[in-house]
């Protein structure tokens, strides 16, 4: 290098000083030849100097030009590098120490300084960018920026990932191309933002993408201005999981509420299946529920929820955007969509002896995931035809180690593959459902039991009431009886006395006798009534022996023979010859039969028919008294057994009450009903030990 420079310098010096050397040689020659050119000496000097200066100028300018070109090149290089943003130029050497070189050197220094500044700034920017990136990534929200024409300008990675879109391919596509349907809420929201310029928040909106990814999201739509142009930004928060959790809790409470509020198992089952199919629930397209029948031999289709067609599915999905209450409180419990599916499922009766996928899941208490029902032979023809879908899952409903049914789910319409996580959720859900169904069933049982108890309680209350009535009646009866017998006794005496008197006093005595006998008879009637009341209220003591009801009836019919003849009533007695004996008080039962038949005679018009039937049934003896009379004109004919109920002018209304009391004391029952052909039928049942 040094050699090169020194060579270069020596050449330059040589070229630079060559004219001087030539000038010196010229003057030396001129001095030697001064004699020959004496006359023209001055001319040679001038000419020589002239040539020298000419050459000098040429040499100088040539050298200057050389250095100039070199420097311009350096400057150009620097500028080139500056243009590229490299403020610290590389491979530039500035030769010399003249003014230009100094300026250039300063320029390079300024450049380096600038470079420092820029790189610090770039670091800042990089840091900020990283931070920004981190922030964007850490936000779970999805961003979509659209232009005025609803074409996508930008969408963040989360969005593309969620909806399985290509990040590079998204720009320029319309929002309608991304989502399978832009539902009315989203569209309305975007339009509103465009029109009014304000932000809109859409809560719990169902979004379904073209490739059938479905989420429920809170969407914020706002205007932004970028370089004077208006754009729409959508911030989409996926709330599906949160909603699902909330929903599952609210669903369980809804189910238990529906169990408590109404006793319709259909509604409970519907609520359960809605939970399985709702977007905010487990999100399956369809769900079917089968329960083991009461005979424990069949699996019966009980309920199904899900659309019948893709159009219906879209309709449902667009409608159920938010968590609208699933269970309608009103009584018009009607299933609007999926009627065909429901019909098909309700008809299904599967024998537990059959071998199909439903029965297997039930028996093994484990879920079965069918991937291709059209190929899988273990599905069973009946099931294949019923579900009519390629992929489905059967989950057993197990309550306390006992399979009570199965839930079948599929994604028939959006054909989303059924993932293990969904199955897991469904399994959990089904065990909750099992508890609901079980608690419903036990609730029904409890209610039945409670009805029983309340009936018994009613009976107790009734007997308490009776006892109270009895005590009062007894008291009154006794208090009245004494003065009554006194009155009646004297009246009787008047009648007797006036008889002996009549022989002498004639007409007056007859009148007295008449009046007396009226008092006497009326007292007797009152006494009879009181006797009835006292009989009814008297605590009964029975002497119970095994006796034949048939004998009692024959006796009684005999006793009443005259009455039948009098009213021309035909009596039929259909006795069961094999009637077991009933442990009873013969006289009391006689009283019962007497009262019942007498009652029938009273109710039956002349020429009517009374039929008495006895029949042996399992562990009891049935006695029926039918008449062709007027029947009982009451909403509940059994009111006739209430004390003091009477339609007769003369009766007290204790006859049938007494009958009921006696039968009750024999642990039997009595009921009355109106016959369709007219008249009443009394049915008495006695237990047979």
């Amino acid at each position: 290098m040094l050699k090169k420079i020194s060579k270069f310098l020596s050449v330059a010096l040589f070229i630079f000083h060559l004219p001087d050397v030539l000038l010196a040689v010229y003057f030396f020659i001129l001095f030697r030849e001064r004699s020959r050119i004496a006359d023209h000496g001055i001319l040679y000097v001038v000419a020589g100097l002239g040539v020298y200066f000419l050459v000098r100028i040429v040499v100088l300018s040539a050298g200057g030009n050389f250095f100039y070109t070199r420097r311009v090149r350096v400057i150009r290089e620097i500028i080139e590098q500056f243009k590229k943003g490299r403020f610290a130029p590389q491979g530039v050497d500035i030769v010399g120490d003249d003014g230009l070189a100094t300026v250039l050197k300063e320029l390079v220094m300024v450049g380096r300084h600038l470079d420092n500044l820029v790189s610090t700034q770039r670091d800042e920017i990089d840091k900020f960018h990283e931070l920004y990136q981190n922030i964007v990534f850490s936000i779970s929200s999805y961003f979509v920026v659209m232009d005025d024409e609803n074409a996508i300008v930008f969408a963040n990675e989360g969005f593309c990932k969620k909806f399985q879109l290509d990040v590079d391919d998204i720009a320029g596509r319309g929002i309608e191309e991304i989502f399978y349907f832009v539902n009315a809420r989203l569209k309305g929201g975007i339009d509103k933002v465009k029109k009014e310029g304000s932000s809109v928040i859409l809560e719990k909106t169902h979004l379904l993408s073209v490739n059938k990814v479905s989420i429920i999201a809170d969407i914020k739509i706002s205007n932004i201005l970028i370089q004077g142009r208006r754009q729409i930004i959508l911030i989409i928060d996926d709330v599906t999981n949160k909603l699902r959790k909330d929903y599952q809790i609210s669903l369980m409470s809804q189910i238990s509420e529906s169990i408590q509020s109404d006793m319709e198992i259909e509604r409970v089952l519907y609520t359960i299946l809605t939970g399985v199919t709702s977007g905010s629930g487990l999100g399956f397209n369809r769900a079917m529920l089968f329960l083991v029948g009461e005979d424990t031999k069949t699996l019966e289709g009980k309920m199904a929820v899900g659309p019948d067609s893709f159009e219906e599915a879209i309709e449902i999905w667009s409608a159920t955007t938010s968590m609208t209450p699933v269970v309608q409180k009103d009584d018009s419990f009607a299933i609007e969509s999926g009627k065909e599916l429901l019909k098909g499922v309700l008809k299904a009766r599967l024998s537990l002896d059959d071998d199909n996928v439903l029965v297997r899941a039930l028996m093994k208490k484990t879920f079965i995931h069918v991937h291709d029902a059209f190929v899988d032979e273990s599905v069973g023809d009946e099931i294949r035809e019923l579900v009519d879908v390629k992929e489905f899952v059967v989950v057993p409903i197990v309550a306390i180690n006992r399979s009570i049914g199965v839930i079948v789910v599929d994604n028939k319409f959006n054909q989303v593959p059924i993932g293990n996580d969904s199955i897991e959720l469904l399994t959990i859900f089904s065990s909750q459902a099992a508890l609901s169904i079980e608690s419903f069933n036990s609730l029904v049982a409890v209610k039945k039991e409670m009805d029983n108890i309340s009936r018994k309680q009613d009976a107790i209350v009734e007997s308490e009431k009776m006892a109270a009535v009895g005590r009062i009646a007894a008291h009154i009866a006794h208090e009245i009886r004494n003065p009554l017998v006194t009155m009646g006794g004297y009246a009787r005496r008047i009648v007797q006395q006036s008889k002996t008197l009549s022989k002498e006093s004639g007409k007056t005595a007859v009148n007295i006798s008449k009046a007396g006998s009226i008092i006497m008879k009326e007292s007797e009637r009152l006494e009879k009534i009181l006797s009835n009341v006292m009989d009814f209220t008297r605590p009964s003591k029975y002497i119970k022996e095994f006796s034949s009801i048939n004998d009692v009836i024959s006796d009684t019919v005999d006793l009443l023979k005259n009455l039948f003849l009098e009213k021309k009533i035909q009596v039929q007695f259909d006795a069961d010859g094999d009637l077991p004996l009933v442990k009873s008080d013969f006289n009391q039962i006689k009283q019962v039969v007497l009262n019942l038949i007498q009652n029938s005679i009273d109710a039956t018009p002349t020429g009517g028919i009374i039929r008495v039937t006895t029949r042996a049934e399992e562990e009891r003896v049935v006695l029926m008294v039918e008449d062709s009379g007027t029947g009982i004109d009451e909403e509940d004919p059994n009111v006739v057994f209430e004390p003091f109920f009477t339609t007769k002018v003369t009766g007290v209304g204790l006859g049938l009450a007494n009958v009921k009391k006696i039968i009750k004391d024999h642990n039997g029952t009595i009921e009355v009903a109106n016959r369709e052909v007219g008249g009443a039928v009394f049915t008495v049942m006695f237990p047979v030990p």
Partner: protein
Amino acid sequence: MADKILIVEDEQHQRELYAMELEDEGYDVDQASNGKEGVDKVKNNKYDLVVMDIRMPEMDGIEALGKILSRDKKIPIVIYTAYSNYKSNFMTWTADAYVTKSSNLDELKGKIKEILTSRAS
């Protein structure tokens, strides 16, 4: 000689009615207005039969019945009361008859006659 009957009854009109009716039947009738008086009368006199009411002031018929029978086990007593429920009181079983009061005295008269006849024979 006519049989002597004591009527123990607190209600004056009833007592007098029975007395009249039984006298008409040919009995010799004495009256007492409560149990205590009845017991005293049995102590001091000889009766062939006592007709005894139960609900009476001072001493009721059941107590009087006990007192009379403890003195003389043989004297026949007919309980004549408006209350049929005393039948369940075993003390009344010691009486010879239990007749429920009625304006028609035929039953009472019948019982008295029956008892006295059976005694006479």
